[in-house]
């Protein structure tokens, strides 16, 4: 596989380092992981310092450069302008906020809820297990986007709809995976050994069974984050995003409704979409990298 080429390149130099440091180094060594980390850091920086670093204030109508409306990338506007002369570079910087809020919140809530319910199903078994698994089967076939539109029609557009509905729908997949992982880990010899020492059940669950799901959880959390970033962009694109806040999806919606495609304003379409794609890609790659960090069997230097 692709990882094979780097096998055993520098196993010795790691030995002397403390454990935590070694882990973070591994994350950085994969090019995709490194790139994702850099892009994510860039997004976080943009979101935090948006007001300071963006050359124009996209929320201030007075700062629209109407004389340079709908112009391509230039020194004045590095990523071009929209049809009212709004600077797209500044808008992109401000749009990072919503994308990150949605991505991180759903990533955390979905995996937490899924892990708790999955562990409960595996731990209690019987009726609890059957009920939860039935709910999983039901929730798995509910389409997210139509439900989001339905809710948005009633309570008005907001990016919190994405967070709430993703949590409501997303736990099912995580729950099923965590349950399966715990059930299969239960039969592994070291867990049997722990049981033979008369270790209490909850202790086995928290010390041995749950940690074995961390690699899985890291991947699903990252995937969920990526999915929610895409869903938020989609919902904003359909006009159900936060009406007052600038988001990447909304920039694309404006490009669509104000005829960027008719005028060939490629920069207006290309850059916001690229930002969404790269952020989603970064989340997914980060998930794989984290999986490697948590799962010793996947590590490059590992011999099994």
């Amino acid at each position, binding site marked *: 596989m692709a990882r094979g080429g780097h096998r055993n390149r520098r196993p010795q130099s790691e030995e002397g380092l403390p454990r935590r440091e070694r882990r973070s180094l591994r994350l950085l060594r994969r090019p995709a992981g490194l790139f994702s980390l850099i892009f994510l850091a860039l997004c976080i920086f943009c979101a935090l310092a948006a007001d300071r670093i963006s050359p124009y204030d996209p929320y201030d109508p007075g700062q629209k450069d109407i004389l340079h409306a709908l112009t391509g990338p230039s020194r004045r506007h590095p990523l071009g302008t929209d049809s009212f002369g709004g600077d797209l570079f500044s808008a992109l910087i401000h749009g990072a906020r919503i994308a990150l809020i949605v991505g991180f919140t759903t990533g955390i809530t979905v995996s937490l809820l899924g892990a708790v319910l999955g562990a409960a199903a595996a731990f209690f078994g019987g009726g609890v297990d059957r009920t939860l698994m039935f709910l999983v089967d039901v929730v798995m076939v509910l389409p997210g986007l139509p439900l989001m539109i339905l809710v948005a029609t009633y309570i008005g557009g907001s990016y919190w709809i994405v967070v709430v509905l993703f949590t409501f729908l997303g736990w099912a997949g995580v729950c099923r995976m965590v349950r399966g992982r715990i059930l299969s880990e239960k039969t592994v010899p070291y867990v049997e050994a722990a049981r033979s020492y008369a270790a209490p059940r909850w202790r086995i669950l928290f010390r041995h069974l749950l940690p074995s799901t961390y690699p899985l959880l890291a991947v699903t959390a990252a995937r969920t984050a990526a999915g929610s970033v895409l869903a938020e962009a989609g919902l904003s694109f359909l*006009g159900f995003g936060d009406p007052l806040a600038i988001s990447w999806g909304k920039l694309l919606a404006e490009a669509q409704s104000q005829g960027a495609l008719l005028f060939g304003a490629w920069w207006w379409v290309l850059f916001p979409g690229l930002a*969404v794609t790269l952020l989603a890609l970064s989340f997914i790659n980060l998930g794989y990298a984290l999986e490697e960090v948590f799962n010793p069997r996947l590590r490059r230097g590992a011999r099994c």
Partner: protein
Amino acid sequence: MNRAYFARRFAMALLAIGVAVVLNFLLIHLMPGDPAHRFYADPRVPPEVKQEIIRLFGLDKPLWQQFLLYMRNVLRGELGVSYTTQRPVLQVIAERIPWTLAITLIPTFLAIACGIWLGLWTAWRRGGILDFLLRTLGTATSSVPSFWLAMLLVMIFSYWARIFPLMGMVKPGLSLAEAPWSFIGSVAYHAALPMLTLFVLSVPGYALVMRNAVISVLGENYILAAQSKGISQTVLLGRHVLKNAVLPLISMFSLSLVGVIGGAVLVEQVFSWYGMGLLMIRAAQARDFPLVQAAALITIVLTIAANFVADLVQAWIDPRIRYG
């Protein structure tokens, strides 16, 4: 077909639909504000319709009675009257369903066919250029927003190359009754880009799943046995590998239907393709609540039904599921 398996799956599908109906009902009543008010306060609703709505939904009765009434109405297919068109919502929606199914199902089936072929090929020639491309694109396409790709395709094929139309479904003036062939031709021409979008986005996923399945099947002992018999590569791949490797693809298909039918909204919006999705968006923008609600409910029912059929097909192909 094993009857017990069928019965269990069918009960599951029915229950899932039931949960969706209950959710739909709860959603109206959990929303802030008086639901009854929301239903008939719209100035576009004439007074006699208002009385009819109050009677039909029992809005003056307690909640549990309203719920029973709602269930009865749903079972009868009475999902209400659209505010904007003053027609039964079911009728409005039924006209839009084929358009959405056409641009979602056709590219999905094409993508599966292509995915099977690509998966077989890349697994057989592991480490080749195609394999590398596939693995790179596989991660990339899962993070590309469908509507963005659609916009880029419009930019390339409609704005620069001027091969395909910008938007719409059919050349104005054509009708199915008068000139059926040129009507269908025009629709296909307009549907090309939306279909291409969905096709491009789903091929790598199917191909990757197929590739991994083929690789694991190739390691099985019966493949070695078949090879030692001296059968040709075509027979080996076509008969022994394909049959066993295609199973995960079918379960992936049934799961991806949820995303495909629901996600078509975005692509429909870009191309002004007037299917279920665009109907729902326009209804939502016009605050035509019964229409939005019914459209969401029917999308859910459609996905559940499609899933049910896919599960049956899977059980039909793979006896281990039926008796497992």
